[in-house]
């Protein structure tokens, strides 16, 4: 009977793209922002990035080892989480913030809900919000060797003027990876060109956010103000790298537009009317919670039942 070949259901061929390939592409796409952050903030930033990534990967490995589960750190998803979390920390934060955040992201937000694909909230953002609430002063202290004082977005909120060009390039205070719009968009282009993400969510997010601040920002269509709002804070990083997180965004096409619009409006509300100048992280995790509902109301029509047109 050794001559009997392996029988399986169709199809018998598979595409080359794998989960780890996709995660690796995301890591590569985050490198421009990471490198700029290290260049901008110096060695402190590098150490924090390394510590955070090490802690997410190690947490996943140890959890799976202790629980006698298959070790999945090879899929690079923990690296993505660690890197994203690090890019959302201020460079002045002590190393243990990276460790606490990394453990929280992987253990509480991801593994306890069943691991990859099962978490309902973006692990990096979940951890960031946890840190923001628990260690507010550390997480909002953007003083470092290069910059002192408020982030441009905070300055903008209190009515001061900001240098928009500096914000686009990234020569401002802020978290490690959020400051350079150019570096983030470069990375996003890699993801768009390789088909990892598309513009549905980031597009809907950014457009609806702009419309919101034009309507309610009290400055009308002031292009300098709009540019500063777009380049400032975590909007770019959030729109391209966190709102597009596969696991925690809707799978339906119309759901993705709806999700993007919701994020734009929430970010606008938080930034304009909230006590903080920031709002991206909270907007996205709030959006994550609504994903099941959004999917429910945006189920696609099948072919031959009205779903044949794009």
């Amino acid at each position: 009977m050794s001559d009997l070949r392996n029988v399986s259901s169709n199809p018998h061929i598979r595409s080359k793209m794998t989960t780890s390939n996709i995660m690796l592409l995301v890591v590569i796409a985050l490198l421009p922002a990471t490198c700029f952050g290290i260049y901008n903030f110096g060695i402190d930033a590098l150490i924090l990035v390394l510590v955070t990534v090490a802690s997410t990967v190690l947490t996943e490995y140890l959890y799976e080892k202790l629980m006698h589960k298959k070790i999945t750190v090879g899929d690079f998803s923990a690296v993505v989480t660690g890197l994203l979390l690090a890019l959302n920390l201020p460079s002045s934060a002590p190393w243990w913030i990276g460790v606490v955040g990394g453990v929280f992201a992987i253990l509480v937000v991801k593994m306890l809900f069943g691991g990859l694909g099962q978490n309902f909230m973006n692990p990096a953002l979940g951890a960031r919000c946890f840190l923001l609430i628990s260690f507010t002063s550390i997480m909002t202290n953007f003083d470092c060797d290069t910059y002192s004082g408020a982030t441009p977005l905070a300055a903008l909120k209190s009515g001061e003027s900001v240098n928009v060009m500096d914000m686009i390039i990234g020569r401002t205070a802020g978290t490690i990876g959020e400051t350079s719009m150019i570096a983030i968009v470069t990375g996003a282009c890699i993801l768009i060109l390789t088909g990892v993400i598309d513009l549905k969510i980031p597009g809907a997010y950014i457009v609806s956010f702009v419309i919101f601040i034009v309507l309610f920002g009290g400055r009308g269509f002031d292009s300098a103000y709009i540019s500063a709002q777009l380049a400032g804070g975590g909007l770019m990083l959030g729109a391209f790298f966190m709102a597009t997180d596969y696991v925690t965004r809707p799978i339906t096409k119309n759901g993705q537009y709806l999700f993007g619009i919701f994020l734009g409006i929430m970010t606008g509300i938080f930034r304009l009317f909230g006590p903080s100048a920031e709002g991206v992280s909270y907007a996205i995790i709030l959006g994550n919670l609504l994903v099941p509902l959004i999917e429910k109301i945006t189920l696609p029509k099948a072919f031959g039942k009205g779903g044949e047109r794009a």
Partner: protein
Amino acid sequence: MAKLTFIGGVHPYDGKDLSKDKPIVELQPKGDLVYPLSQHIGAPAKAIVAKGDRVLVGQKIAEAGGFVSAHIYASVSGTVKAIEPRRVPSGDQVMSIVVENDGLYEETKYAAVKPFEELNREEKIKLIQEAGIVGMGGAGFPNHVKLSPKEPAKIEFVIANCAECEPYLTSDYRRMLEEPEKVISGMKVVLSLFENARGILAVEDNKPDCVELLKKLTRDEPKITVKALKTKYPQGSERQLIYAVTGRAINSAMLPADAGCVVDNVDTLVAIHNAVIEGRPLMKRIVTVTGDAIGDPKNFLVRIGTNYQELVDAAGGFRAEPAKLISGGPMMGIALFDLNVPVIKTSSAILCMTEDDVQKWEPGACINCGKCAEVCPGRVLPSRLADFAEHYDEEQFLKYNGMECCECGCCSFICPAKRRLTQSIKSMRKIQLSKRKK
């Protein structure tokens, strides 16, 4: 003008270069011929010969078991050795007539053929029914049933499915290049059954030579046009083909006739030509033997009933140890235990590959990337459906349009986590379909 196509679909490695330039060669079988009584959709045929009977080429050996069924003819002369269950490409054991080939190819006396012009509609359909013709693209639906819709006057399009979108397959391609006049003649026969219909030869644009040739040959046929379709799998899927050509979309519960269409595959049209114009029953078909494990990939004209092993031997045997044997193409074909199965009316190819992608990749966790939904030509959510199927959640499966899946395999192909989505959905669909029948 935008190219004719559909939404979704994938572009797997097409592998057609292995066999596309190999002219069709006729293969004469040496061993026993096996004729399963069920090689079509519908009731199994009933054997009308007994063990020990001598049969001739073209002799009817099994009669259709009902209206939705088809006759079966001997493709060699020889003696009926047994009527017993044999394994068929689908893996089932099916009652089959086994004929020992005497190598003489002595033909039966065929009934005289009336000139085409003198045949009326009923006579033509009768000839097609008598010849035992079924859809030879893979489904095996009895052709005379397809050609007898409730309202023939409402048929506006007769579409020849010349897409051949399955990777590796080149049997239709060779047929179109080598015997295009038979394809066109078959099309004319079908067109003559539907007074209000136009004929469309729909070819994927990866076969520009076929498009050119068919265009040249149909230049003086006002009712027939050749249309090039964008090359994308599964363009040859009936519903996707109808949509690409006519812009009409039908769901799984509808028939092509509901969109005013009749669709026939290339080899089926040739069989129709043979039946109506030449008075010959369905006894042969073209089979591509290919894959990186095959010594010398070829396209064979094969007598139905020939053992797969003989075809592989004639194609130079294995040049490397095959890991996977497939009857048909890599996307929708059926994996085989071994080659000891007969060519049946729907066998389009034998594909032997040195690597088994299915075994190579262990399925991982779904990361909700949505690629499956992007490529699904049925516009459903395969990852969700597979979840419902695996948890046997019938209610949700049906609510999420699980029955609209055409089992084309695009979702499993594209899935980065290598989940076996098609397999799970297919299993659930089978259960639901059998429940419907009850």
